[in-house]
């Protein structure tokens, strides 16, 4: 039992060191933004896929925003992927088509497998451009965003690109404020540090792009995956394509406003991530492919982030067990030192990362909410662990993976 606990502490320490490495790199390291200065070019044809399933509250916003971007209109086709919507989504899309002839070609899907990846896979019949951008329907791209996301594809090594997600409905309640902090840490520090260090920036599946030839080479969208973005990241990596992160390509999104929706969202993410871990983890670490050593290690650690929740819970249980069993190596000195060190340094790592992100964003007061994040982490750790257990039990219970769409909260039509 004690050795199992030691192993868990070692893994947690590894993630702690990773948090610090990323944060210090963002604060003091060289920042890579190699493609962001490309503002003039013979821009390629691009198809913009907008995934939409019952999005009547938000779909008009993104279509209006896309019609206002500064990308050459004759080189840009917007394809709203209306996936079996039962609300007014289809009607709104068709109205936009009439108002902007030739610029929007809708893909209305009334049957077929559920989930975003399946819908995107079917929509590929309308895509013949080398560059594809993907947005979820609740996003609002700014004027210059499309050029910024297309620019990295001039690099023949780049197969995928990811922009920064910025919550729009920050001030709604405590949850949205905590998610704003989490997103800030995840993008401003984690993703950009991975870009700086030439590790594995993650494709997020929205505010993102993929190269058609790369997508074809890796076998297209995986409609069995709950997180098609994570799946895409790793298949691109294994085939020698880079995913790049553009921290300055920012786009507003709507974050969940209720804990129930948040729990469902993070459980889907956890299951999808774990799926990818099972599918690609060992091959990534030990297989014959083009990923570098640092990409292999970072990629594996990234795949393991959602496993860390049940592992941490197990660690807590083991710690209790060790205590009640009376096991105390070196008369408890190691336990005491471990607790002290982890409380002082390790446990603080994620908070340090988010605090650094807030500083990099030049925000001042929101950092005060940092202690409340323990609430968000608490909910996450149990939700993710629950997702993991249900995944383990699925073969016994016969439960099927299914896609839970994230509910929208925007009220303006």
């Amino acid at each position, binding site marked *: 039992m004690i050795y199992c606990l030691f192993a868990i502490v070692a893994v947690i320490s590894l993630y702690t060191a990773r948090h610090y490495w990323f944060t210090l790199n963002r604060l003091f390291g060289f920042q*890579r933004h*190699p*493609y962001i*200065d*490309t*503002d*003039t*070019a*013979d*821009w*390629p044809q691009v198809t913009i896929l907008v995934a939409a399933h019952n999005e009547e509250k938000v779909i008009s916003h993104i279509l209006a*925003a896309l019609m206002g971007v*500064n990308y050459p209109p004759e080189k840009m086709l917007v394809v709203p992927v209306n996936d079996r919507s039962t609300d007014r989504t289809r009607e709104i899309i068709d109205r936009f088509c009439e108002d902007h002839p030739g610029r929007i070609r809708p893909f209305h899907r009334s049957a077929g497998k559920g989930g975003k990846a399946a819908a995107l896979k079917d929509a590929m019949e309308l895509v013949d451009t*080398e*560059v594809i951008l993907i947005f979820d329907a609740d996003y*609002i791209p*700014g*004027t*210059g965003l499309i*050029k*910024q996301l297309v*620019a990295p*594809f*001039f*690099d*023949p*090594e780049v197969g995928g690109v990811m922009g920064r997600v*910025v*919550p*729009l*409905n*920050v*001030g709604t309640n*405590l949850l949205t*404020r905590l998610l*704003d902090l989490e997103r*800030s840490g995840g993008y401003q520090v984690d993703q950009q540090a991975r870009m700086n260090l030439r590790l594995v920036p993650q494709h997020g599946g929205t505010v993102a792009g993929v*190269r058609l*030839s*790369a997508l074809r080479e890796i076998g297209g969208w995986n409609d069995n995956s709950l997180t098609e973005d994570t799946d895409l990241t790793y298949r691109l990596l294994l085939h*020698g394509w880079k995913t790049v992160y553009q921290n300055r390509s*920012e*786009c*507003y999104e709507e974050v969940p406003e209720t804990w129930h929706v948040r729990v469902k969202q993070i459980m889907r993410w956890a299951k999808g991530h774990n799926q990818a871990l099972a599918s690609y983890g060992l091959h990534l670490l030990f297989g014959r492919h*083009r990923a570098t050593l640092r990409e292999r290690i970072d990629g594996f650690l990234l795949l393991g982030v959602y496993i860390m929740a049940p592992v941490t819970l197990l660690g807590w249980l083991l710690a209790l067990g060790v205590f009640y069993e009376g096991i105390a190596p070196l008369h408890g000195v190691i336990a005491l030192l471990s607790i002290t060190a982890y409380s002082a340094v390790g446990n603080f790592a994620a908070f340090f990362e988010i605090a650094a992100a807030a500083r990099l*964003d030049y*925000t*001042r*007061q*929101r950092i*005060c*909410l*940092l*202690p*409340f994040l323990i609430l968000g982490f608490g909910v996450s750790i149990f939700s993710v662990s629950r997702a993991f257990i249900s995944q383990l039990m699925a073969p016994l219970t016969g439960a099927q993976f299914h896609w839970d769409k994230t509910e929208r909260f925007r009220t303006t039509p």
Partner: protein
Amino acid sequence: MTAVLATAGLFVLTGATFLLPLIPAFVEFHFKRDAQALNVIQQYAGDIRHFSFGFRSYAADLLGPLKECVASAGTASGTLPHGDRYLLLGRPDTAQLLSPGNSEKTCDLIIAAGTELTLPDGITFAKEMYASRNLIGGENCTYRAILADAGIRLRRASKVIRWAHAAEDIHAEQDCDLYGRVSSDRKITLESGCFFQRLHAPHISFGPASLSALPNAAPRVGASAEPFSISVAAGRRLVDEDLEIPAGEIVRSSIVTRGSLRIGAGAQILGSVKSNHHMAIDSGAVIAGSLISATTMHIGANCQITGPVIAEQEMTIESGSRFGTAEKSTTVSAPVIEVAEGVQAFGTIWARYEGYVVTRK
């Protein structure tokens, strides 16, 4: 009863002590002092003329009075609503630029000129300047920012601190320092010794006009072939080590190398090229797509590159090389760029830290 109260009091006190560090969190949560979405500028499109547009609208109120000054061949002065003092010149009279006894030769007025204007040497213009006709600077002048509806000629050793935009040509003579953004709707010419950061124009030329004509050393590849701005239609070739493409070779795909890359003289690449280490392009090479280096890049003489050119560290470009075409403009970008006289570009050249124009002996 006393014991119960004491216990309860102890609990409350302990709880309050634990809550004390959370007071800033509760205050922020309650008052929402910083609960706005991050300021993502939705309308900012990265246009290099952003500041010139802003200044044009800021100074819009001056245009009417300026026309009157031109009509009457007079001058006028006053104060804008934001408190900036201005001087309107309806005739090429520079005597009023400096107040009497101004030994530091600093003009702290917004200048708006309605006629062609030739400035005296050595003046520092601390505020923006607008010229509706050609503006010819003096030697050793320093400008905060210039907007011209015609052309701008910056005489030797002048400085632009923030930005300059001209509807017609901008010509910077030797040893000028152009910080920030410099753009023209027609052409920018920089002579040797100039420092620059971000340049944008349909045509950018380095060095004297005598070097502007591109020698015919680099034949256009596949005049009948479609150039690839995004190259993978031709497939890509992945190489895990250093690669050298022999002189005169024609490669019909894109190339990605993990190591360094050398493209021999006169070689022709129909796709795009990426190197994860140093990239050297020998003279006369032709690249139909883009050219990307994760470190440094050296582009030899008389090369011709159609797509974007990016180096993550330093880039040196030799005389006679040409980037983009008049029909297909492009971007050349690196933190540090050294350009020899005789280079031509169509579009944007962006040296994020510093760019220099040098003379090769």
